[in-house]
């Protein structure tokens, strides 16, 4: 791997080397991208009229999951794991739908902002409990998933409520060309607006620091507890965004958590974020979600039982992670 980039060619060696370094550093993401493109080509082959509408459908179905995966990625990068994401999505989803039932557009916007704040708050509660009780992340968030799911049932005991028209209009349509679905652009924009400044800030560095070595981070002056609470609060914020995406997509609030939690863990791992923390980003998980969603679509095109899509997702998850850890083992041996 390292040898290939060493020989200095004519022209601009620095630029070449930099490019080589960038490729090496992002092998996993590039591999995912190649896989995604191959999958799109495959989709086009088996379904020749796959076009803008197909992309649109992909964007709509993947929007909430992409946001959930980003939420999970932030927590995993900082060395934790959040099993309450699905419940938080359900909670924010029903709060939004129930509050918008008899609201005009102005109040609707206020409600959406309130829901995002609620997400931040419940995420921060998760984080604070982990820091204060010193119980393992996985246990606390597992227990809190019951709490948030219960809260969702308190708000709406059966599916109901309503989404404002401005919100549902965000989940359809396209921007500039018909190949750019509006929900996809919006989701990526929101993630970019929050993540890029964060990643470049001191806080972003602290997130990676506590994920990679908590003690070292502590000794170099990072406030571990505060950073941890912030990482869970951010996960709550992105879960609330996912909850709004679900509201926009379905038009109602459903108090039962979907399969978002476990799928988000799968997407994060496929996306090259180490469960040990401190490594990875949000781009990989986003591509991974698109791959997982596209596989589901392809299965329907192939007229295969959609349950086989679940099997395939599981197999891909296992095989990819096995491959990854085998590569890691070999690297260590070499």
């Amino acid at each position, binding site marked *: 791997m390292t040898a290939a980039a060493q020989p200095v060619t004519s022209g601009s060696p620095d630029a070449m080397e930099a490019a080589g370094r960038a490729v090496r550093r992002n092998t996993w993401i590039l591999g995912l991208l190649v896989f995604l493109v191959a999958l799109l080509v495959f989709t086009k082959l088996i379904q020749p009229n796959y076009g803008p509408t197909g992309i649109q459908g992909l964007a709509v179905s993947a929007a909430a999951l992409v946001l959930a995966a980003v939420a999970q990625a932030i927590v995993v990068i900082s060395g934790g794991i959040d099993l309450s994401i699905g419940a938080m999505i359900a909670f924010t989803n029903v709060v939004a739908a129930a509050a918008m039932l008899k609201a005009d557009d102005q109040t609707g916007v206020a409600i959406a902002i309130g829901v995002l704040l609620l997400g931040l708050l419940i995420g921060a509660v998760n984080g604070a409990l982990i820091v204060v009780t010193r119980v393992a992340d996985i246990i606390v968030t597992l227990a809190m998933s*019951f709490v948030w799911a219960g809260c969702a049932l308190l708000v709406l005991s059966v599916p109901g409520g309503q989404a404002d028209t401005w919100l549902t209009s965000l989940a359809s349509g396209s921007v500039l060309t018909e190949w750019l679905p509006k929900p996809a652009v919006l989701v990526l924009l929101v993630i970019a607006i929050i993540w890029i400044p964060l990643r470049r800030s001191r806080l972003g560095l602290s997130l990676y620091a506590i994920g990679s070595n908590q003690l070292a981070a502590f000794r170099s002056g990072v406030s*571990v507890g505060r950073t941890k609470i912030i990482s869970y609060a951010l996960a709550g914020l992105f879960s609330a965004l996912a909850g709004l995406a679900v509201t926009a997509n379905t038009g109602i609030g459903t108090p039962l958590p979907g399969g978002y939690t476990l799928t988000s863990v799968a997407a994060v791992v496929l996306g090259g974020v180490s469960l040990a923390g401190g490594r990875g980003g949000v781009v990989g998980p986003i591509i991974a979600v698109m791959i997982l969603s596209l596989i589901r679509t392809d299965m329907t095109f192939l007229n295969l*039982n959609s349950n086989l899509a679940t*099997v395939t997702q*599981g197999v891909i998850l296992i095989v990819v992670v*096995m491959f990854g850890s085998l590569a890691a083992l070999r690297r260590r041996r070499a």
Partner: protein
Amino acid sequence: MSSAPAAVNEPRTSAAQTVMRTFRDRPVVPLLVLLGILALAFIGLNPRTNITEWVASTLRAAIPLAILAGCQTIVMLTGGIDLSVAATASMSAFVAASLLEQQGLAVAIIVPLVIAVIIGVINGIGSGVFRVHPLIMTLGMGLVVFGASNAWQLLTVKTSSGVPPEIRQIGSATVLGFVPVSLVVFVPLALIIVIGLRRTGYGRLLYAIGDNPIAARLSGARSWQVLVVLYAISAVLAAIAGYLISGFTNVASVTLADSYLLPSVAAAVIGGTSIFGGRGGYTGTIVGALILTVATSLLFSLGFPEAVRQILFGLLIVLVAAGYARVTGET
């Protein structure tokens, strides 16, 4: 975790610390006290309950949970977790029900067990040989098993019918008026697990691997073999729990045991097994499963809606886990 200040703790021997140490070494004692309080609260609030009947129904509901929590306990001792138990349990119940008519009872019981062993061996190879994180490995395996049982369901066009009558007997009948038959299955299993963990070399290996995997390897433990066997045992236990659940509820569907997954982890944690491995045991887990079951029926009898029950359930888990963290001084 970031317990830099905690390291300064000097060993002092006060009365409080002796109590704390007892709690740490014998977590079953305070757990039994908690269980007693919950049970007394239930009986006090429902004075007209027929106690023997209530105990029998509680046991019947708690036993499948206790077995699934047993899967989590033995796996958590090595620092792992098994998220495929719910899918495996549902699979075994469903496949047994679907095979019963054409193949007879023996085949209907044995085939799911064989499938379970295969599932477990794959889990073990993944986490033992390929070093995939057990959370991911069993999560993926759970997806595979769930999807495959769904596909099998469509293939056989059978939704939920025909729980074998023998299994229904084991799951829901009682002997002598109050002893649930499922105890007959559970007691030997529990004894095997408890004694196996405490007295056999294999049981000690589990603790050793969970406590310090490198030390275990250097002292000659082949951890991958231990893990392959371990996950196979866990899957077989899950399959047995699946039979009991389907017998208890008289339903065999592919989502039958889904609602048991998170409580099974919770019961093991409440029972004092550390999710990081190396600490815990099965007796605590059994009490943990009983606590969860009694707490559920207590909340139910108080007339709380489902929503409030879930919230209190979650808070109970956090509280007990926080109590452990405080007592043991580790995370």
